[in-house]
Structure formats: C-alpha cells, structure tokens
C-alpha cells in the first residue's frame, strides 16, 4: 500500500511541476532561514559545561560605599581582592577559584625568537578540576604552588603547538613578559562557549593560551585585562590593587548539592553582615549567587540581534507554511474529480487521506533537504560576518535531525487541512457535475 501511495504521489507531483516546485521552494526557504538562525541561537545559548554547570555558582557581594546608592541596584559583576581572598581561604565550597584575565608577551627561553602577545588567565588552582579542563600533558598546579607563588604555567595546546611544535613541553620554560615560568601542564583544545568564567573578555572570546597562578602573576606584575570598577578612593593604580576599593576579579565556587548551595548562600550573607559590622561594607547587606546558566541569563550573553533574527525567521517560516497550505489546498481541490473516482471505486476516506498526506510528506522531505542545503549556505554566510561568535556557527547532528523532522512535520501539518477538505468532497455530487 505504501509503495502505491508513493507512486500516486509522484505522479500527482509530476503533473503540476510548477506548483510542486513552488511548494518545495517555500518550504526550503522557510526551513533554511529558520535553521540558520536557530542553529546560531542554539550554539550561543548552549551550556558551556554540560552536566557540570548546575553545580557551579558565581557569588556576588556589594562592598561599595553609599555614593550612588539606590535600593535595588545591581550588585557588582566582580569581586575585590580582599573579599576574594577571604572567601577563597575560608574553603567553604567543594571547590573555589579566584581569577582575572591578562595579556602577556610570550616567547620561549630562546632569546632569538620574537615575543608575541597572548591572552592569559591568572587563577588559583581549583580552576582546572572545577571546570574540568582536559589535559594533554602534565597536570595542573595545586594550592601549595598558589601559596608559594611558584613560577609555573599551564599552556593551551595551541600555544604548545606554536612554541614547542606540539611536543610534550612539561618541564620546559616559557617566558611571560620576560619572566621564566616552568610549564607543568598542557591542555587539550578547550573552548567553552560562551567564555562564561569571565565575560569581560568578550562573551564568546576564545580561551586563554597561558594560565599562571594568581599570586605569581601579581608578584611578577603581569599585565591585567578586563573590567574594573572602583569607588571611594579606589583609583585602579596597579601596585595597590590588593587593597584598592575596586572590584576586578571573578570568583567561582563548586557546590555539589542543593543543600550545600543553600548553606553557602547563608555563609555569604553571614560574611557580608560581618564585613558590615566591621565597617568595611556600608550598604545594606545584599548577596546573590546565581548558577552558571543563571549568570549567563542575567548577563544577557546571547546578543539581542540573534534572538531577533530567530523570531524573524520563525515569522518568515509561518508565511511560507501558510503559502504551502494554500497551494496544497488548491492542488488537492483541483483533483476532486480523480479523488471522487477513487472513492466511488471503493477507496475508503482514510486511504484517500493517507494518500494525500503522503504527497504532502514527500514535498516536506524534499523541501527539508533543500532547506538543509540553504541552512548550510546560510551558516556559511553567518561565518563571514564580523561578530566574535560568527565562527562558532556550525550545524551539529541534533540540529540536522531537527531540520529534517521540522520540515516533514510542518509540511504534514500543512497537508492535514487540505487533505481533510479534499477527502470530504461528496463523490456522487462531484462525479455528477462532470
């Protein structure tokens, strides 16, 4: 029966080529536009650390003075050195890391090579296990090296390829701003999207190339980068950042159960109350601790234009679908005579309905394939765009399956109404009128 329907559908589609082509084109354009924009949205709003993001949290405090105070104002996006160190050393979370971004001139110990600038991250040891960074060679440093402010570094596999031709470089020396650091670990390719742990570097910026213990970086005066926000006497003078009234660091914690998260929130409130009692904090006590995806949402990481484009494409797809419904209705109704003959010869209403749906489904399948091609083309166009996220726009397997499913599903849905109308034409009346 299935084969017969396919044959009937093919015959019918061939009979009115222009109309068939028009339907396929409409579906393909709608699907192409939709999948292009949805893929971009899907990539950009994805979870950077699936399975792990639920237990990562970003605590926020308000250490500012009363200038510009208004009830309900947002908390600072970052944390001061003093608070960061206090929270870090209290070790109340399963893991915790204090960090900031930077940029250093990098070269090997070989003086003849030219130094070049690379993005750096100065962080405490838990960064690596907490964010589950994959290691190619060697290992991360530990809290001991943090405290000793050891001259060590972990580098990215890209930097390792560039400096050491991809060989195991652990134990060798990398020079950052003229300071010798011993490589103790090399990461595999690691680029979380978005660059969640420090949005100041750009929401979708690439990963850093060199990781140095925070204390070491401060000792060596390695150049800091990213956002900084000061109040009162804080002026952003580099040598006084440890005591300055400025927020400039990011602090992340890992809390493995909801109970621990609640306990940590209480601890934060308690800490803020203590600081206020001691006179360091002046504003009414206010703390916040969002989880990773909550923080991404709060910071509106996904560009507004990307959402706008997705809505636009959905609207476009709706027009294409209505168009297809109309055309299919025209096509099916034109064949009332033929369908009536089949009904008169004994085909049940259900089998006529199925036959028409088969036709709709085939249009959907072909339209979906063409739409897939258009989406691929569309994503190629997106990648040519100047935005930082553009290069991330690639079709993945789930989106590929979704494309085809959406195309066939939507066209079947579009076919239901016309097919229903067509198979309810009274055969006797129709045949008589001919």
């Amino acid at each position, binding site marked *: 029966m299935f084969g017969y329907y396919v044959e009937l559908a093919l015959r019918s589609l061939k009979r009115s080529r222009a109309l068939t082509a028009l339907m396929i084109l409409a579906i393909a354009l709608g699907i192409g536009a939709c999948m292009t924009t949805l893929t971009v949205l899907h990539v950009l709003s994805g979870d950077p650390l699936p399975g792990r993001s639920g237990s990562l949290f970003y605590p926020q405090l308000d250490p500012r003075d009363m*200038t510009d105070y208004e009830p309900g104002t947002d908390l600072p996006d970052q944390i001061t050195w003093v608070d960061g160190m206090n929270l870090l050393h209290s070790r109340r979370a399963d893991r915790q890391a204090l960090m900031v971004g930077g940029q250093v001139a990098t070269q090997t110990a070989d003086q003849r090579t030219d130094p070049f600038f690379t993005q750096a991250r100065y962080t405490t040891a838990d960064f690596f296990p907490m964010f589950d960074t994959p290691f190619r060679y060697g290992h991360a440093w530990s809290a001991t090296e943090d405290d000793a402010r050891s001259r060590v570094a972990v580098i990215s596999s890209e930097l390792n390829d560039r400096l050491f031709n991809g060989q195991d470089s652990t134990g060798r020396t990398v020079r950052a701003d003229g300071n010798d650091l011993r490589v103790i670990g090399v990461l595999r390719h690691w680029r979380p999207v978005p660059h969640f742990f420090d949005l100041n570097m750009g929401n979708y910026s690439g990963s850093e190339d060199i990781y140095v213990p925070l204390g070491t970086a401060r000792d060596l005066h390695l150049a800091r980068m990213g956002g900084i926000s000061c109040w009162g006497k804080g002026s952003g003078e580099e040598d006084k950042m440890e005591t300055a009234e400025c927020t400039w660091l990011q602090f992340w914690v890992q809390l493995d159960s909801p109970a621990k998260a609640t306990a940590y929130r209480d601890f934060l409130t308690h800490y803020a109350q203590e600081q206020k009692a001691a006179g360091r904090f002046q504003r009414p006590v206010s703390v916040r601790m969002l989880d990773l995806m909550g923080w991404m949402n709060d910071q509106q990481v996904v560009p507004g234009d990307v*959402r706008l484009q997705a809505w*636009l*494409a959905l609207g476009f797809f709706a*027009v294409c679908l*209505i168009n297809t419904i*109309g055309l299919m209705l*025209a096509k099916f109704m034109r064949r009332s005579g033929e369908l009536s003959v089949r009904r008169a010869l004994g085909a049940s209403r259900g089998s006529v309905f199925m036959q028409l749906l088969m036709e709709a489904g085939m249009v959907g399948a072909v339209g979906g394939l063409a739409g897939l091609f258009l989406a691929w083309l569309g994503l190629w166009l997106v990648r040519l765009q100047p935005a930082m996220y553009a290069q991330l726009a690639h079709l993945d397997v789930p989106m590929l399956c979704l494309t085809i499913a959406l195309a066939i599903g939507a066209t079947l849905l579009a076919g239901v109404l016309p097919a229903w109308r067509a198979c309810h034409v009274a055969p006797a009346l129709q045949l008589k009128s001919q």
Partner: protein
Amino acid sequence: MLTDIFPILSALRRHRLTASLVVLEIALTCAIVCNAIFLISDRLGQLSLPSGIDEQNVVHIAVSDIGKFGDAHARTETDLAALREIPGVVSATILNSVPFGPLSWNSGIRLTATQKVSTVDSGNLYGEQAGETLGTRLVAGRYFNPDEYVWLDDVIAHRSKQPGVVVITQALAHRVFGDGSALGKSIYIGDATELRVVGVVEHLARAGMHDRNGIDFSTLIPLRETTATNGSFVIRTQPGQAGQVLTRAVEKLKEIEPRRVVVEQDTYGEIRAKHFAGDRAMAGMLVGVCVILLIVTALGIVGLASFWVGQRRRQIGVRRALGARRVDVLRYFQTENFLLASMGIVLGMVLAYGINLVLMREYELPRLPFVYLPVGAAVLWALGQVAVLAPALRAASVSPVVATRG
C-alpha cells in the same frame, strides 16, 4: 468596478478557507515587512551618527610595551615630538579612547558634591589637546590652556590633584543644564572633584556600545595620557595624507623603541566601520529577508489565483457569453485581489503594531512611525496587483464558447 464588489464578496464567502489563507499570508508579510523596514532604517540611522571629529584625516595607532620601561613622561614627549615632525602631520597626541572605539572610560556626572545618585553617565576623553587633534567643533568657550594639564598617571597615584576644568558636548550640556549656557557652571565627577565647564563642543561620540540617546554625552578632561596607562596615539593629518602618515608614523615609533609591538593601526574610517559592522550586517540581512518574503508571498498569490481561474473557467465562460467584456473579467480578478489585500493589510497593520510593541519593550526601539502604514499598504497592494496580473489575463482570455462545452 464598485458594482463587482458584492458578487466578489459572495464568491469569496464560498471559498472562505482559501481566501482567509491569502489574507493571513498578506497580513503576516505586511507586519513583518513593516517592522523589518523600520529596523533597517533604525540601523542605517545609527550608521550615520556623527562622531563630531574630522573623520577623513584622523589615524590611530595602539602600541603595547613588552617589559617595563623607564620614565613614561619623557618617553611620551619623545614619541610625540618625533610624530609631529613627520610631514603631513597637523597634530599628534595620546588619547585614552577614540569616538566609537572599543575602549571606553565612563563616569557618573553629578551637579553637587553631595548628590547621591548621578544625573547622567558620560564618556571621558583624556589627552593633551584632544579636541584640537580630533578636530571637534568648539561652539562656546575655549579648549584648555597648557598649564591646566596634569599627567593621568600622577592623578591615579595621587601625586597630582585632578584638574578643575572640563569641556563638554552640547548634548551633555543640554541634558545637565537645560537650555541655558553651560559655561562657568560646574559638574562633579568621581570622588567629588569640581569641574568648571570652560568650553562646549558640537558633537563628540563616546567609545564603547551605547544607545543613541547617550552616545553624544562626552567630556574632555585636561589629563595627559601615556601608553603605559593604555593610551594610544591619535594623529590628525593634512587632507588626503592619512595613509602615508600612518605608515610613516608606525615606522617612526618602531624606530624609537624596537621592543614595542604595534597592536592596532587604522584610519578613523576603519574604526568607525568596525564599530558599526554588526549593524550593517543586520540591516543587510533584513533587506534580504524582506525581498525573499515579498517574492514568496507574490508567488503564493500567483498560485492561488491560477487555481481559482482554473476552477472558474466555466463560470467565466458563462459571464463572457452573457456579454461581459474581457476587461470586465480582468477587473473582476483585480478587484478580488484588491479586496483580499486590503483585508490582509488591515489585519497586518494591527499585527505590525503588536510586534512593534514587543520590540519596543525588548529592544528599546522607538514606536513605529505612522508613515509606515500607508507605505506598507501601497507596497502590498502593488505586490498583489502585479502577482494577480498573469492569472487575471489568462482568465480574461477564456473564450465564451467554454460555456457551451462540458
């Protein structure tokens, strides 16, 4: 033509489903296209926001030092003296940021020392002779005297007091002081430093991403910048010499200090293009979507009209046999399409306003101007008439003899 309307309406009533599909399609298209065109004009409007500077003749060079160097002030003087000697250079300085550049310095502006909450947020531009070098247009007062400048790094390290004078933009003056003259009045920035307004410039766009209401809120503060505090070189050249001067200046800077890295070198046009690249891409995409949407809708109308013509061949034949002229048949289909389009447009306008309300809330877009309604309507009426022409002509060519057949 009017006499046709009632028979058409009663005919449409018998094709309610198909007719409502056409109306719905036209309505959606109308709503999307109206909003898309509005978005396009909004983006294009941003592209032409004034920077307030002599864009044609300004170039920008950012350098980064590797390792630590000695006296930043002396090095700055040496660098700038060398740059000023290059033929074609009108003026050279180091600035903390450039209009529409990526790096921005901002602060809240207050009207009294004790005011708790800032009146408005503004972008701050530091650098010796910043206004003169960029070529902003002074509309009142003066720029700074040489003795009013202090070094930025000295202020950061509390070795010098903040200067007490400021030049602001017209837009900022109007926002803060209303219609009266701003000259001689004071504003407060940061930790309660009083700044007396000594000059007002026509425009000076801020760096970084800001909405169009705040883009022209800028201040010029007499602080001398160095590359050690992240400043970058800005040079104004004689007309037409930007390219050569840029190349020569980069060479010169490398000559003076080979160990520094030139991170960016661009003409101002490139900085501006980079800032608006996203808006331009978005506008281009919207234009593309509008065009394809209109084509799809037109093709849909052609398809359905053809179907109707095919279905009504006999009735057309009967009308022709009863004395209707070809042009009457043609008019019939054109009027029918006009009616459908009109219904679609009315529905579409309501929808367009609905979408606009959502966009206003989500994207801080202004209200859809009224002028878009007649324009949108005209576009869709025209589209419908063009699309229906071929099927209508085919209908008009149906011969009266059809009535007697079958």
